[in-house]
């Protein structure tokens, strides 16, 4: 941990086990539009949490409420046990990396990074070594005196991160920090930034609408759906045990079949689907409309293990993805049924149009109310 990472004294005082950042019952509306609805969220110290959701679901609004740039209509926000709900942005000590970085074009790289220190009354002499340290941390030392307008996207992001970190915020908020970068650079920067923030030991919240990015950068992911958090869990749980069809669809791919419960016994339901009966652990009343789903890699071709669900379907499309191969299944066009299977390698003789038998374990099958 570098000196940069030493938490501000204010952040240490009153730290509680309840979570470093706690958002309770927060609501925000713009006119008639409810953008945040009774939203609660708790983030542990040093944890990285992603806010994942489609554009317009309220991610930026939540971030702005936490940063103090927006006043929520209801709710409470505490950082390190201190209630900051009524504090203005400049007294919160919450760092923000803005979507387009919002660097100051009239200042150089070093002046941008030193801006917060100077604003908080640190003398030029005291600020200089801290700016140099922050520059080194993001490997921008040799660019110190350049105007920020001359930097590449990746370099601008580093400056934005350094500018936010140098004042030792108790929390770092990042609003789609990679969206301005091209794909290749994005992947490198994701790993680099995660590593850097770990080293500094800061608590961070990433906003993203890209599920892959969320999986890469975060310890836990909060999937947001129109102003609410639908599920907050670690990536494995989110992927393996989504709580709703919304989360299932937003994180990863799946084969998904609509159906009706035809039998219930011992916490296992049997669902009649367009491809035949499928069994899954769950509790539903007979006759309920549901959807069953299974992740692509949980499916094998052929008979599978004893007692596995088996259905047969026609292959419509085959995509070679390098390390694995994806089969798309031909399903009735109406409804939201879809079929995606991923195999380590394509068996001989399978081609578009082939009829295949799919096997997947009962335990890997999920049921959701439709």
């Amino acid at each position: 941990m570098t000196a940069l990472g030493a938490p501000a004294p204010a952040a240490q005082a009153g730290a509680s086990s309840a979570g470093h950042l706690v958002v309770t019952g927060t609501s925000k509306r713009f006119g008639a539009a409810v953008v945040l609805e009774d939203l609660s969220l708790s983030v542990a110290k040093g944890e990285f949490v992603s806010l994942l959701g489609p554009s317009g679901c309220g991610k930026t609004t939540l971030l702005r409420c936490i940063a103090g740039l927006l006043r929520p209509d209801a709710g409470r926000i505490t950082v390190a046990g201190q209630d900051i709900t009524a504090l203005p942005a400049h007294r919160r000590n919450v760092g923000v990396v803005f979507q387009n970085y919002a660097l100051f074009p009239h200042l150089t790289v070093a002046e941008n990074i030193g801006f917060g220190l100077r604003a908080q009354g640190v003398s030029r002499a005291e600020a200089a070594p801290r700016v140099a340290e922050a520059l080194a941390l993001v490997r921008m030392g040799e660019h110190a005196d350049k105007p920020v307008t001359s930097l590449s996207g990746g370099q601008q992001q580093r400056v934005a991160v350094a500018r936010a970190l140098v004042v030792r915020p108790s929390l770092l908020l990042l609003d789609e920090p990679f969206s301005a970068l091209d794909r290749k650079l994005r992947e490198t920067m994701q790993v680099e930034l995660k590593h850097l923030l770990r080293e500094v030991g800061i608590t961070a919240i990433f906003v993203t609408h890209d599920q892959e990015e969320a999986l890469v950068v975060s310890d836990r992911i909060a999937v947001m759906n129109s102003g609410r958090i639908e599920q907050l869990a670690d990536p494995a749980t989110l992927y393996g045990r989504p709580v709703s069809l919304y989360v299932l669809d937003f994180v990863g791919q799946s084969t998904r079949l609509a159906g009706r419960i035809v039998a219930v016994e011992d916490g296992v339901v049997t669902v009649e689907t367009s491809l035949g009966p499928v069994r899954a652990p769950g509790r539903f009343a007979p006759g309920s409309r549901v959807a069953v789903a299974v992740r692509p890699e949980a499916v094998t071709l052929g008979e599978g293990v004893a007692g596995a669900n088996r259905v047969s379907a026609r292959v419509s499309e085959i995509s070679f993805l390098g390390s694995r191969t994806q089969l798309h299944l031909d399903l009735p066009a109406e409804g939201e049924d879809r079929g995606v299977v991923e195999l380590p390698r394509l068996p001989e003789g399978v081609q578009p149009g082939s009829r295949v038998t799919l096997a997947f374990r009962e335990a890997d099958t999920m049921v959701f109310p439709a």
Partner: protein
Amino acid sequence: MTMDRLGTGIAWTALILVIAFLLLPIVVVIPVSFTESTVFRFPPEGFSLQWYGRIRNVDGLLGALWLSAQIAALSTATSLLLGTLCAIALVRGLVPGAAAITTFMVSPLMLPGLVLGIALLQTMREVGLRDAWWSLYLAHVVITLPFVMRTVLASLSLFDFAMVDAARTLGCSYPKALWRVLVPNILPGFISGALFAFIASFDNYPVSMFLVDVRTKTLPIQLLNYLEISPDPTLAAVSTVLIGLTVIVLILCDRLVGLRRMASI
């Protein structure tokens, strides 16, 4: 081909004539101010600085210059502050009907000065403001505000307000964030707006005409009065001084932000 050339030729000639028409009267004033003759005539006869010396001795001329400078500077400063705050509200969409209000606020630009002058005179009378200095100051805020609004609005529409948010999260209060981030970034807009505003106030005649009194006269009014009494080259000397000052200010602005950047706003 020949038609093309002919067209370009005509356009070029027009351009040169228009430039000459714009520039010549100004250029003529300068030599005339150094004449020995007592009449305003070109070409000048001989060389003397007597008319510059006379500026100090003509009754009320320096006072008028000082008053005009005061009124122009103070009304411009007031408009910069008020205009910027109004422009922020309008650009940030905090106001319903922002587009209509924007049009209204720059409309005095399109209103004949006479109308504005009469209306302001009427208003000052109604509210019982008799003091000429304060009447002029308030009227000139009305004159200068649209100039400032127009350029500041143009600069603000290109300004990313996330920068203000960034400054706030880094420890600046909202006013301080505006000062540290917004002001330096729209400085060219400020300066060109201020320049136009200052000049508009400094040489305003039709509005000021209604508001001056015997002892409080702005420079344009004083000059015209003087011209009616004794039409000698003192006026050319005053004009030359003003041209010189304008050139100095333009050079300073160019050094500060670049005239090209200012002209583009």
